[in-house]
């Protein structure tokens, strides 16, 4: 199963439309959390998901195609599911600024994270093999942050 998710704040029709088109040629189910009530015939649409449902779908997904939201990235990495990130662009009215582009620039190249800058290239990328990355719940960056916070609490 492929999971498409755009977060809880704003719809992202550029991504969902393209995934709807791609899903027409796939024989595996594509579940999409869309943040909008539009119909997409090739997708199993759930506009909003509660946290339990969201975690459940993330865990069972083979591949996640998502906006570059940190909640999605953290959730996917904690269970070791590969991610294709499509950043929202402010010029298209997809977010109030371009911070998702910065997020993708910083995260691309990490294990299990791929970036799509042009949605026309999404189909080919989705068809590729996506070996699951190791599940990551800690690392030197997180350890450093935790140690410092602990010293603040005293």
């Amino acid at each position, binding site marked *: 199963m492929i999971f498409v998710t755009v977060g809880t704040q704003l719809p992202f029709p550029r991504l969902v439309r393209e995934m709807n088109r791609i899903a027409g040629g796939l024989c595996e189910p594509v579940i999409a959390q869309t943040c909008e009530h539009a119909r997409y015939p090739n997708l199993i649409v759930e506009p909003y998901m509660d946290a339990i449902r969201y975690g459940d779908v993330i865990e069972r997904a083979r591949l996640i195609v998502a906006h570059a939201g940190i909640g999605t990235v953290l959730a996917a*990495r904690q269970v070791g599911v590969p991610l294709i990130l499509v950043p929202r662009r402010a010029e298209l009215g997809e977010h109030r600024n371009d*911070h998702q582009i910065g997020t993708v620039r910083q995260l691309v190249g*990490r294990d299990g994270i791929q970036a799509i800058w042009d949605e026309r290239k999404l189909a080919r990328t989705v068809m590729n093999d996506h070996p699951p990355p190791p599940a990551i719940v800690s690392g030197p960056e*997180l350890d450093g*942050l935790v140690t410092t916070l602990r010293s*603040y*609490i005293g």
Partner: protein
Amino acid sequence: MRSQRILAVASKGGHWRQLNAMAGAFDGHKLHFACTDPELAQYHIGECSRSEWWRGVIVACQVLRIMAVVRPHVVVSTGALPGLVAIIVARLLGARTIWIDSIANTEAMSLSGRLSRPFANHWLTQWPEVSARTGATYAGAVL
């Protein structure tokens, strides 16, 4: 180590996940969570945003009530605007405050983050570049 009462505040979504990812830092203390999603945490606070900033007044009242119940020594937030409200109220009431700007802000502190500076005892970014540019502390990141 003396056990402290800690109130951890975040909006649902990425802010909430980041707060939880770093929650190991608070092991051994009495930890209370507040979130804008009533299903996720023990305490609920409302939403507010730049366009609906006046809702911050409601959030401030909610935070005051939670502060009265929890009486935290430390209040920590990863944002967004409701978290800023919590940091301001907490600091004015004399709690120690920690702001950790979202890792989504790779080039500059968020608006809430910038506004939190005078109210945060500890003011952190999750990117070294932002630290160099703003003077925020960089100690690591959730990713």
